[in-house]
């Protein structure tokens, strides 16, 4: 009799339990609408190219910047994401509509930043993301940009290096320099000497391919003979490996074309390893010294 009682009790308890579980899952379904197109979640990376520019004023915005549009969540009623480009990381919010194999998004940046705007794009066959961005501010120099993005996963790899076939010339900071050239080899014709101004660009040395600033703890002797541009590139390669989106054009020109570089955040300081942190401090110190002393009277 006693045994039968226990059996009944356990059956009753068990059934109660399962009922409760069902209630819970139903509750979750009510507050959390079903997520769709989860296969589209992730980073979509590519070039963010000028479509409409106000040509009446001097060009200051880059023709192309590397952009990463992150899709974080898609439901029938709402899409959440992030746009990371040119030193800005902005949350995105908007809507999605589906038509056959094409998924169409309209996503807004919050609107409280002067560079905010609206992204309008489609993803075709789950592989290619194509669209345009329109600035909220109609008086902005570049009002419209276009992009074709591919899905790419970001992963920190301390071993990646800048590709050696790249050209590392600082086109963003030209320097005018006076050059005197003699037109004739005959020294008696010295009067024919011609003086003209020419534009000089800083060029990085090969050290930027040889020194890995993320894996090697740098010593003063490693960086002493480097010019300021080399030091800057070595330091920013650390940040590029962690996916920092760069605010300055000077830095972007070197990293935007690099295949492995994906901008994911506007602050990666907490991601740096100990070696990287120490190297950043050392490189910064040498950059400052190079800036203050390289071409001036003094040490």
């Amino acid at each position: 009799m006693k045994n039968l009682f226990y059996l009944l009790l356990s059956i009753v308890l068990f059934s109660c339990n399962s009922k409760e579980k069902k209630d819970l899952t139903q509750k979750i379904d009510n507050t959390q609408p079903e997520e769709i197109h989860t296969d589209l979640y992730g980073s979509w990376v590519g070039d963010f190219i000028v479509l409409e520019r106000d040509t009446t004023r001097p060009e200051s915005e880059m023709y192309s910047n590397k952009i990463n549009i992150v899709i974080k969540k898609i439901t029938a009623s709402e899409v959440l994401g992030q746009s990371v480009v040119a030193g800005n990381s902005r949350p995105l919010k908007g809507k999605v509509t589906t038509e056959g194999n094409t998924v169409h998004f309209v996503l807004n940046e919050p609107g409280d930043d002067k560079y905010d705007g609206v992204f309008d794009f489609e993803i075709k066959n789950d592989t290619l993301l194509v669209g345009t961005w329109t600035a909220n501010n109609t008086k902005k120099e570049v009002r419209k940009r276009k992009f074709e993005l591919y899905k790419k996963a970001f992963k920190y790899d301390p071993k990646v290096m800048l590709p050696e076939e790249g050209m590392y010339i600082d086109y963003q900071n030209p320097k005018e320099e006076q050059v005197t050239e003699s037109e004739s080899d005959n020294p008696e014709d010295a009067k024919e000497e011609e003086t003209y101004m020419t534009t000089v660009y800083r060029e990085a040395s090969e050290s930027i391919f040889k020194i890995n600033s993320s894996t090697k703890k740098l010593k003063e002797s490693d960086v002493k003979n480097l010019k300021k541009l080399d030091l800057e590139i070595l330091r920013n390669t650390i940040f590029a490996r962690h996916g920092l989106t760069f605010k300055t054009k000077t830095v972007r020109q070197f990293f935007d074309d690099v295949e492995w570089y994906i901008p994911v955040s506007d602050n990666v300081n907490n991601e740096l390893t100990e070696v990287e942190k120490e190297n950043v401090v050392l490189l910064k110190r040498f950059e400052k010294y190079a800036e203050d002393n390289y071409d001036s009277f003094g040490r």
Partner: protein
Amino acid sequence: MIKITWQYIPFHKDIAFLQIKQSEVEKIPFYIPFFYTHVYSAIFVLLAGFFQLNATFLKRFPAVHRNIGKFYVFVVLFLSAPSGLFIGFFANGGLYSQISFVSLSILWFYFTLKGFTAIKNKNISQHKAFMLRSFALTFSAVTLRFWKVILVYLFHPAPMDVYQIIAWLGWIPNLLIIEYYLYNQLKK
């Protein structure tokens, strides 16, 4: 030069030039005291030297010439040259510039000492010759920095390559000019 010295006041372990010498600052005992002895003393040597070269000054104030002279000799022999020798061993640019700076400091000491003993023996022409040599080396502090500006402007070399060149270019031509001058004086 006063401005360059000024950036080392107040005393810091990591200012200006020392920004790229932190491994020496940390590893070499007494690097900082020797460095600062050199920086703070040499500026006075340079300033004092300018007064001594002036012939009318010497004629009008011979006693002041003697006093500044003693100061110059004392500071070079006991402060600037020994500290220069010490930091010369750890000079930027490797062996070539180290040899240059070490020999520079030894010659500086030697010329200054010879100039001093010469005047003690009342040998004025020898005193003048050695003191001119001494000041030619003192003045290398200025010339090597001028050469640096010129080289960087013309060729944009890497920083330590510049250093190796100016380590020699700073004082050898100075000394040659003085020797040439003394040689001409001798002929007269």
